[in-house]
């Protein structure tokens, strides 16, 4: 059982710079990660760049943890992309728009490896 958190996703500059280069290493490094605040990092017992598993009712994914000041306790930010979206429900509540923000999630330290984009896409085949 992991720690309960609120998951949001969104754009970053490096993610934007690689919009047309999503198979690149720079995109992978930027997007397959999650921002946490210091207290949450300590609670999980993870250091920067260690892997965490994030799980929702719709899926689970392994990403690298990053400490970011200004992220409120209990909130996790994953840059928009295949890793964040593996955790998002397709239910649009009749609006056409999935819930990309405000998702109930659990997070825990893991020794599992972060899947590369090609490996991650394979999980849908």
């Amino acid at each position, binding site marked *: 059982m992991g720690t309960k958190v*609120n998951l*949001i*996703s*969104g*754009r*970053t*500059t490096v993610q*934007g*710079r*690689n*919009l*047309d*280069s*999503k*198979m*690149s290493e720079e995109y992978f490094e930027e997007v397959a990660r999650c*921002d946490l605040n210091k207290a949450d990092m300590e609670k999980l017992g993870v250091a920067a760049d260690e892997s965490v598993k994030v799980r929702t009712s*719709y*899926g689970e994914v392994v990403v690298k943890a990053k400490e970011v*000041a*200004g*992220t*409120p306790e209990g*909130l996790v*930010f994953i840059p*928009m*992309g*295949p890793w964040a*979206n*593996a*955790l*998002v*429900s*397709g*239910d*649009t*509540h*009749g*609006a*056409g*728009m*999935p*819930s*990309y*923000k*405000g998702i109930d999630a659990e997070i825990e330290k893991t020794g599992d490896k972060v899947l590369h*984009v*090609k490996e*991650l*896409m*394979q999980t*849908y*085949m």
Partner: protein
Amino acid sequence: MVEITDVVCSLCGCVCDDITVEVEDNKVTKVKRGACSVGKSKLMGHNRIKSPAIRVNGELKDCSYDEAIKKAAEILAASRRPLLYGWSSTVCEADKVGVELSEELGAVIDNTASVCHGPSVLAIQDVGLPSCTLGEVKNRADVIIYWGANPAEAHANHMKRYSYVSKGFWTEEGKKAKKLVVVDVRATKTSKMADVFLQLEQGKDYLVFSALRAILYGHEEVVPDEVGGVSKKDLLETAEMMKGAKFGATFFGMGVTHTGARQNNIVNAIQMTRAAHTHTKFTITPMRGHYNVAGINQVCTWETGFPFAVDLSRGYAWYNPGELSATDLLIRQECDAALIIASDPGAHFPGESIKHLAKIPVIQIDPFPNPTTEFADVVFPAAVSGVEAAGNVYRMDNIPIRLRKLIDSEYPEDEAILKRILDEVRAIKEKEDK
């Protein structure tokens, strides 16, 4: 070496049109001024899809454009419920052919607005939008609000060209004479620049809009000491700042559309703007993401009457977001083939809906390989609009701007590929009718 000025950026909804680049040997070798780092990256180029390809036994095999056109047309003509999705990172001329193709097929046509500002479109259809051009903001606005938006990362030139940092006719002192309010759930590069940062609890935007509405209408007594994590003191200060504006401009992003009440958040944001009208001039504008997502909404509206999520299978246009948006169609496993152009659902759709997309035949038209390519069955490399192809796009404030062609391409334009698919589909149908 040739220097080209007034280059137009084809990345985000800012559509900056004051860029200077150097071109040598049919390559953009330098972006000299005007572009942000994201736009610069776009202009300088990335790895390309090298050849048209068809998936055979799980592997993409290179083929000719003729073979790929034939295969794509066969897939679409045989489909009973095709979805044609994307359209936001290409030009209006291609989008127009896309609508024609959708009509020919009786397809559902949807665009990236449905996972971006679709809720804003719904809200605008509900209550209208007191908005203005970005030029008006630049020349007039002295109070700027970014709500659920982080332009310092996502629209890096927005503040410099149009809002907080820009200098215009009545705003010649620039940011010295302006106020910046940022509303977000976490500290961002944008919030660090703000005069007032309202850090709200995630998902509580609706409540905070309502509180500001109440204060602006003179009913601060109904507002409790704290709303959605924001103190009444900060709300009163923000409302005073809004009231004191000569001209205020709110910009909102995915922080509002992606969350909780969705379109109802935006309705409330627009009504907050109306409340500000009892004191001063105030406008509100969505921060559109792709450089031509506003354009496909325009094209789709003038061709079908509706901006996104349009079903053409009935012989007339039927609009129902929530039923006909791409995500909903995929979750219900309703579509049996898809054409994806100028977008990347493989990266940007919920995993749950990608599962169905990965199962059905997918045709992809894009200059660049991306996660969608991983499961696409027919792939067409295309010229990069705004670098290798000209055409019209609509900026986030719905101002049409023409993209320039800077260099020649070895790849055809999106419009040309779509026209060929359309011709081939018509030929197949004619044959079937005989």
